[in-house]
């Protein structure tokens, strides 16, 4: 179980949100919505432990993540605004390295299956990522989710620049993760096709 | 007091050209710093009052 308690955060001189208390139970998804600049990205980075809150706390299984440190990092997979992939490496290399750094399985076959799952065809697997289109790069980045065995996923606008096919692959993957008892936090401008009983919304305002 | 006259004092035994710039620049720097801090405070406090 994953909780924020009276969390408040600011960037520069702006108070972005205050007193946010939400609980994400296993098998549920928290959709963080709000206008441009309302603080969704900042909220997610705070949940990762990359940004420190002004007040309040973030609890993983009841313990403060500031105490857990690396133990907490080992529980989550974060896909940010930025893709976190190396332009010069091929999709296969990118995925292999990041899976092995995360401690996930990274054999060739598994990586290949993950890339196919996001709809990248074979010839693309061996191109340098630099020449791929915006949407293809995003797909490579998201393919990590097909390798991840971590319970908590934090996703920042995963659907941006995806086409319809890729959007539906991703939705299915989220669904499967939730059915496995996983937890997901997504910042998004789009509707997510997930049953309403397993989704809750957090609306940030400006 | 070893200075016979004002001129002697300024000559500094022939080293006036080195002694006085040293003291002068020191005074200038310290005075300038005080002035700069004073200006900075005035600017900061002034704009705070109007806002």
């Amino acid at each position, binding site marked *: 179980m994953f909780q924020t308690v009276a969390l408040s955060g600011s960037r520069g001189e702006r108070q972005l949100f205050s007193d946010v208390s939400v609980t994400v139970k296993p098998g549920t998804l928290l959709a963080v919505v709000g206008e441009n600049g309302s603080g969704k990205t900042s909220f997610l980075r705070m949940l990762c432990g990359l940004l420190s809150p002004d007040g309040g706390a973030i609890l993983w299984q009841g313990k403060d993540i500031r105490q857990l440190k690396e133990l907490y990092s080992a529980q989550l997979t974060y896909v940010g605004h930025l893709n976190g992939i190396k332009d010069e490496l091929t999709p296969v290399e990118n995925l292999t390295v990041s899976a092995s750094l995360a401690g996930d399985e990274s054999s060739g076959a598994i990586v290949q299956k993950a890339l196919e799952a996001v709809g990248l065809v074979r010839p693309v697997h061996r191109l340098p990522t630099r020449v791929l289109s915006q949407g293809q790069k995003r797909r490579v980045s998201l393919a990590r989710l097909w390798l991840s065995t971590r319970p908590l996923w934090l996703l920042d606008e995963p659907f941006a620049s995806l086409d319809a096919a890729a959007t539906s692959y991703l939705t299915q993957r989220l669904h499967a993760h939730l059915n496995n008892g996983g937890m997901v936090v997504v910042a998004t401008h789009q509707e997510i096709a997930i049953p309403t009983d397993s989704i809750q919304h957090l609306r940030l305002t400006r | 007091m070893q200075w016979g006259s004002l001129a002697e004092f300024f000559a500094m035994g022939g080293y006036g050209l080195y002694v006085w710039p040293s003291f002068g620049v020191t005074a200038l*720097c310290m005075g300038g710093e005080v002035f700069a801090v004073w200006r900075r405070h005035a600017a900061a*406090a002034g704009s705070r009052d109007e806002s």
Partner: protein
Amino acid sequence: MSGTGINWFKYSSPQALYPLAGRMIPWFAALALGLIGVGLYVGFFVAPTDVTQGDAYRIIFVHVPAAWMSMFLYVIMAIWAGLGLGLNARPSFMMAQAIAPTGAMFTFLALFTGSMWGKPTWGAWWVWDARLTSELILLFQYIGIILLRSSIDDLRRADRASAVLALVGVINVPIIYFSVRWWNTLHQGASVSITAAPTMAGTMVTAMLVMMFGFWMYSIAVTLARMRCVIVERERHPSWGKQASMPDAVEAR
């Protein structure tokens, strides 16, 4: 990292500090003026002319205090920076920020007065002597810290990044001093050395010490004054937080 029980430091302290500093400044300023005045009097009118160096030696009355303050202030700045990082205390960062320019200025003055002294005694404005070189590098370190801070406009990051640099630098200062000294002495015999200063008359030492204390008081006064600027500026640009206004700040002005 933040927000764990030290809120007193974070929020109330600057407000208390502002008027406190305001009350302290006049005393230190007066002390500084008095000491420097006495020092100058003794230095120019009581201390005798030096046998070997003539009156050029009188530069010592600004040179040595400036050189001394330049090193002393660096250490103090690093201590504040370390405290800031350790306790996550904003006032400490602000002190460190307030000290840096004064330190850099004294470093520059030590260099300037030193080379003013060098020309008549050594015949050159600049030689690559150990002490001179390490003073020059100290200036670079000050400048690095000031520039790093001014290139970052997020205050929180600026504070902490320059604190890390100050701490790393303070380890470097003694290493530099000894390395440079060794480098030089191995190369050439001590053809130039400033430690070989003639044994000074008592009044000379007195004047120098009085000037030193004067500079010290000056540094405290001007640092506190700059600290007040920093407090006001941060309140105006309140990336430092949404805090109440400072009523006593206006009155103390």
